[in-house]
């Protein structure tokens, strides 16, 4: 685990500079120096008054597999959301009225976000989990890492 700063939340109070035992928080680019950060120390996380620093994990536990039938249903729902997305995308390309184009594009993006949630709940939560590993094998995508 190492510390990571969300630069858009950082109010530059500099408490993280005072508490860091290694100087990892003191860099010119706003990012915490991962090489210097001590695994699991978290002093800066607790000190930051703006809640701008969090710990990033190197490893995540394998998600608990859900019921196979329910996962299949969520994949069915994903399939439907994705065809709606494809349809809205084609519609956005065909329409010429500005309101119609905007509505079709809004629907397209909304269908995708709902579809992504279905994929998560069907077990494809993280790049590093077994359902994704199996899918990569089936599709011959094993060059993609974790």
């Amino acid at each position, binding site marked *: 685990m190492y510390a990571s700063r969300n630069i858009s939340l950082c109010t530059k109070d500099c408490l993280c500079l005072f508490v860091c035992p290694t100087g990892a928080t003191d860099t010119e680019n706003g990012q915490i120096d991962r090489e210097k950060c001590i695994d699991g120390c978290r002093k800066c996380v607790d000190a930051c008054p703006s809640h701008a620093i969090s710990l990033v994990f190197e490893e995540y536990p394998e998600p608990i597999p859900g019921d196979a039938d329910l996962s299949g249903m969520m994949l069915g729902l994903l399939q439907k959301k994705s065809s709606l997305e494809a349809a809205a995308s084609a519609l956005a390309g065909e329409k010429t009225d500005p309101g119609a184009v905007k509505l079709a594009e809004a629907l397209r993006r909304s269908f*995708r976000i709902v579809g992504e949630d279905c994929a998560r709940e069907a077990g494809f939560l993280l790049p590093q989990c077994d359902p994704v590993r199996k899918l990569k094998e089936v599709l011959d995508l094993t060059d993609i890492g974790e």
Partner: protein
Amino acid sequence: MEKVKTEKLSRNALSVLFSNLAKASEKQQKYELQESWSRLSENYRESTGDADFPDIREELVRSLAEDYPEIRKKAQSLSDRGVLRALVWGEKVTTIQKSLIDRYLSKGESLLEGKDIFICEACGFLYAGTETPALCPVCKAPSSRFSKIQVPAK
């Protein structure tokens, strides 16, 4: 509700699955991995069909009447709170998608004159208006999670 096996997913369904993995990579600050999944998601992306707004609306009505209650029943029997949460959000967002189409079909172009559509990046909630909502009414994400819909260049 038809149960779909992973091997039977359409290309665009895979595109959606991959863009979710890209987002999960970004949250872990694995930017190269994010890039790989995003690229793959774009390669699998599809834009197909000749559905117009009434056809999309009809499918949403069907899905609200059939898909959501059926999956909810199953999720309730298994007490799967994660899926139940996704169904609550999905059902609310689907209802809003449908009502936005209804309003467009009755009012036409005047519905969106001088207005933008804002989308909640967390749950897909849509809002037509002049200002970003302060809070997502569906998933309670803050206004910073909203984006303004930009119309693709023709």
